[in-house]
């Protein structure tokens, strides 16, 4: 870990709340990008972003510098994504297996509507739709692999599970996405 990062975390652990603002400035863009990939929905991504940083703040006293700070942050983000997903699932009326169709009932955001005619948007809609069909675990693993380029062993450490489990989620997610995108 960088010296500046260690000092920043130590400051927060010693009660300097202003330093936490700097920590958010440092990681905000990456966390938001990933939050959006996890949720494929702007409002949920904002909620996930805030919940993640609040959780980071509340648990930072237990961070012992035994892993990279960003790995620790990723883990919290992934756990919060699971929580959010489960919350959404509980709110949905029907549970169609591993899918989460509740999100499909939400209106498309303004940017999507503006771009509707373009090839990119239709493709993006297909991908949004396809990703929403995955279970939370499949989606998180798939996003970490595809968009973050993480190795399977790193994802396993991050999600605190075995490499075999990660592979299983990744394989299922890939096959399912392949099938959905091929249909569309």
């Amino acid at each position: 870990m960088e010296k500046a990062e260690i000092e920043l975390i130590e400051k927060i652990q010693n009660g300097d709340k202003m330093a936490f603002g700097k920590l958010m400035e440092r990681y905000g863009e990456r966390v938001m990008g990933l939050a959006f990939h996890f949720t494929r929905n702007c409002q949920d991504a904002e909620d996930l972003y805030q919940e993640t940083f609040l959780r980071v703040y509340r648990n930072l006293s237990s961070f012992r510098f035994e892993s990279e700070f960003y790995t620790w942050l990723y883990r919290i983000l992934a756990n919060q994504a699971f929580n959010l997903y489960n919350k959404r699932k509980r709110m949905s009326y029907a549970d169609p297996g591993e899918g989460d169709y509740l999100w499909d009932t939400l209106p498309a955001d303004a940017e999507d509507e503006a771009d509707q005619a373009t090839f990119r948007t239709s493709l993006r809609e297909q991908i949004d739709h396809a990703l929403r069909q995955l279970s939370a675990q499949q989606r998180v693993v798939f996003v970490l692999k595809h968009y973050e380029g993480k190795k399977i062993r790193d994802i396993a450490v991050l999600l605190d599970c075995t490499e075999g489990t990660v592979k299983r989620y990744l394989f299922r997610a890939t096959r399912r996405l392949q099938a959905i995108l091929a249909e569309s």
Partner: protein
Amino acid sequence: MPHTKRTEEQLLLFFYNELNEKERRAMQLHLEQCSTCRQQLEQLQSMRAKLVDTPRITPAEELLLRLNRRVMLEIGDRHSARFAGLRQFIEDVRETLSEALAQPRYQLVAASLTFVIGLYIGRLWFADAGQPATGGLADLVRNNYTLTEGESNDMQKLIAAYLLNTGGLRIENLRPVENGTAGSKQIALKLKMEDDLALKGDLMDPTIQRMLMYSARHDQDAERRQMAVQLLAGLPQNTGVSATLAAVLVHDTDEEVRLLALRKLASRDLTDQTIDAYKLAAMRDPNPTIRRMALERLARNADEQLIPVLVLITTRETDEELRMLAQRTLEKITVKSNVVK
């Protein structure tokens, strides 16, 4: 290696670049013999191509500031939250006005503004000593920086006093008005600025550059957008300019403007952002000339990263010449990659 369930899993690991050297070689050999796996791999590559085509997610700075402010408030640090807002407010004022006000003519106005902002800070500071602040900058920040009528009046008076002294302002009307309280009179003045605000500066002037970047991306007049692109292209290698040209290439509705942006980008170094813009243009621009030029530019520095895009073009492009170009580039990359291996 015969085709088994395990081979299918190995193929996915091969696709995700998760095999060791020995396993990878074995899979390459298997692929040469097994048409089912080759077909599977093509489908996987096609899926990746679709995912590559989605735009990169970059949250707006304002959004992050707003969310960070909320988190700071939530963790009970009202000071930091407020000062994050204050920093943003001062930054906004500075960005918008500082360069215009830096001209000698407006220096006093700048001093007045500093004074007014200072007043807000003072009010916030003292108000915070006791109960949570109401009014002042805290409210200003919460209300999206909207000035109250009184504050706006104070600021206008300061600016008007200066402009009147320097001859930039004339009095158009002057009349006494009743303000509703018995015996009390106020004076209403209507003031007219002599000139509209106009800027002049060379291309290296940061304000001029910012205006040109704004014009290139947001001007309603296509000719002015084109002119702005033309002028910006005269600047030396500069990330801001490349990003602007890339944005014009992807988003502008006028194909002449997009074409010009593409031509001007061609002489600049490739960045992640410009590569993304070329990819999008090559895949979806309605104008085949732009698609072709974008593809040619990408092909000049073709590497394995480009494969998904090329696969997509070879399967979806309607123009045969472009499909062939994509195919040739794919073959070139494959040969290069085999030579390296």
